[in-house]
């Protein structure tokens, strides 16, 4: 399909906000989307990501802020005049229309010539490999096929922007992987600007050019997958990016550069400070399971520079090339590590951490009640 002529250069969300009753669902979302970009809105349920999508689609009026398509303000336009394609979580296929009629619907609404409607419909159906199913009703298709119809129906209009609302969450794990590749392939071949909502960090990281991490309606961080993966801006983002080990510790003296000493729970480790950390302040140390080096117990501590801790293996899960291992440190702290080493429960091991991979975040004590996640981890740590 050729690119549509009415494409924009940038779509700019300027302080987009939405309140429901007295409840803030989305607060001051600022993001500029370049043409052809794949943006993922990522966050736990209730973080405002679907609200943001519906605001862009025009299905929800804004309670604050503006949306600009180049120099045109579009947040006041009704949804049917924005020309954005949308893929819904439950597909929302018209159950009484054949696959072909579903795909052709948008073209008919645009009152395009019959011949062009027919040609583009067939093209879109071929694009998603559903030629053999064009005359079936959606109810006779599998979940994955229905999802492909939904995608064909949205992209047949060559929209300037495609909005996808958790399109893969109703599919089983295997199909989800396949469709993920499919979506990425479609995006690469058609160059469609896409805003994609998901709560699955893996999906977001693998699909998107840039991620917007939301929490409680507020943006936590905007960045490329690499940036977010390696340099999360807060412990909330880290939590979402697979930093499975989160420990509440106390900061000691600062070292060279951004290095900082943290201790507690029998640990005494050097990490990298993210944000301002005062000496003696309470901090959250975050560590990814695959950033922990697992050594045999025979490697005795090499003095204070060792940056490690002794532990005992508790649970071993086989995961193909690697093992996911839950260990208990000498001080009763439970940690998750990944290793290729074949371990059995009860093994004594030694863990070592690269200071650059141990991220030290300030706690957000201003909102102590929202700390459920961490205090939960901390509690489990102390109980263990």
């Amino acid at each position, binding site marked *: 399909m050729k690119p549509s002529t009415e494409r924009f250069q940038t779509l700019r969300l300027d302080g987009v906000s939405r309140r429901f009753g007295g409840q803030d669902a989305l607060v001051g979302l600022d993001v500029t989307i370049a043409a052809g970009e794949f943006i993922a809105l990522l966050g736990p349920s209730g973080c405002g990501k679907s609200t943001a999508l519906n605001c862009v*689609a025009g*299905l929800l009026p804004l309670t604050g802020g503006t949306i600009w398509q180049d120099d045109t303000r579009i947040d006041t336009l*009704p*949804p*049917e*005049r924005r*020309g*954005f*394609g*949308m893929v*819904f979580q*439950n597909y*929302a*296929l*018209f*159950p*009484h229309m054949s696959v072909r009629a579903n795909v052709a*619907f*948008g073209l008919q*609404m*645009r009152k395009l010539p019959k011949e062009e409607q027919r040609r583009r419909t067939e093209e879109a159906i071929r694009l998603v490999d559903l030629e053999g199913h064009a005359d079936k*009703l959606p*109810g006779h298709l599998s979940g994955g096929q229905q999802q492909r119809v939904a995608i064909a*129906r*949205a992209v047949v*209009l060559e929209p300037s922007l495609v*909005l996808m609302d958790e399109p893969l969450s109703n599919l089983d794990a295997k199909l989800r992987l396949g469709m993920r590749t499919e979506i990425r392939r479609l995006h690469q071949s058609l160059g469609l600007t896409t805003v994609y909502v998901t709560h699955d960090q893996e999906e977001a990281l693998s699909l998107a050019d840039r991620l917007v991490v939301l929490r409680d309606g507020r943006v936590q961080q905007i960045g490329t997958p690499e940036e977010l993966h390696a340099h999360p801006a807060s412990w909330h983002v880290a939590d979402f990016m697979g930093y499975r080990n989160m420990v509440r510790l106390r900061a000691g003296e600062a070292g060279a550069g951004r290095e900082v000493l943290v201790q507690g729970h029998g640990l005494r480790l050097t990490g990298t400070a993210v944000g301002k950390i005062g000496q003696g302040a309470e901090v959250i140390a975050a560590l990814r399971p695959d950033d922990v080096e697992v050594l045999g117990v025979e490697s005795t501590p090499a003095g204070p520079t060792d940056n490690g801790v002794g532990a005992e293996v508790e649970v071993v899960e086989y995961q193909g090339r690697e093992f996911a291992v839950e260990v208990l440190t000498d001080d009763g702290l439970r940690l998750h590590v990944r290793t290729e080493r074949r371990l059995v429960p009860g093994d004594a091991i030694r863990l070592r951490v690269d200071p650059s991979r141990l991220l030290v975040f300030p706690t957000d004590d201003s909102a102590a009640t929202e700390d459920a996640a961490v205090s939960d981890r901390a509690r489990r740590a102390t109980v263990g």
Partner: protein
Amino acid sequence: MTTLTERRSDSAPSPQRPSLRHRLAERGVDRQLWLLLPAAVFVLVLFLYPFFYGLQLSFQPTKGGPLADYQRFFSDAYQRNTIWLTLRLALPAALLNVAASVPIAYRMRGRFRGKRTLTTLLVVPITLGTVLTAQGLLNYLGPTGWLNRTLMGLGIVDDPVRLTNNYWGVFFSLVITGFPFAFLLVLSYLSGIDPTLERAATSLGADWKARFRRITLPLLLPGLATTFCLTFVLAFSVFPSAVLVGDPTGETYVISLAAYRAAYEQVDYPYASAIAMVMGLVELVVVAVVLFGRSRCYTGSTGGKG
């Protein structure tokens, strides 16, 4: 899952052949079916028995052959005409009830403030009963009712407009009592349609007219057909209002009135039964035609919770 484990335990004596109870259960026959018994008895005693009793009675006229009473009904123009008079009332009333319910229910399908109050107001006439409605109609639309007094007071008409004790009186009564029923049914059919379908249509560039015509209406049509049938059958058996606000000897001499007179004024039960059978047949024909049309609509899932 459970069937698998059950099969294993049930078929322990003969592994080749599952037990009878299990085979029946696979076809949906089990002990819970006994719960249907009261309903079955109810239908048998209160519907099927009277129906077949009436049917055989209608073939045993007081004089003449088995079909004599049917011949009598159809050869008498005054009696035969009741079919037409009743259809003339019931068809437009049912059609209007369904047609009026659609836009109102369509506007009310979402959630909004005061929805419950509005629904209650629209449904209240169901609780009134025909007699109270008739009284209201006589007071309001009668020759000395408020409407005519207002119209004459404003000088719009010189003589009272006759809206009661004729066709229109009965028609209004049928609309007032039939509408809430149709409205409730249509509303529930509408809320059974997944609201994201309309949002999807919106995102594809459909305005509300196109959304209604292409998405909502086709999905609602089977429900409308069912609603029409039910309201039509209710209206076709109109009786009290035909007497109270109609013209029971003239233009609202409906078929149920004819059956009533045969039974209780002429005391000719076989003839009354024959008329009742004709009445049932006419209803059946109309319902069959509508349901045939319905079977040509899409009647599958509409994605909603309904």
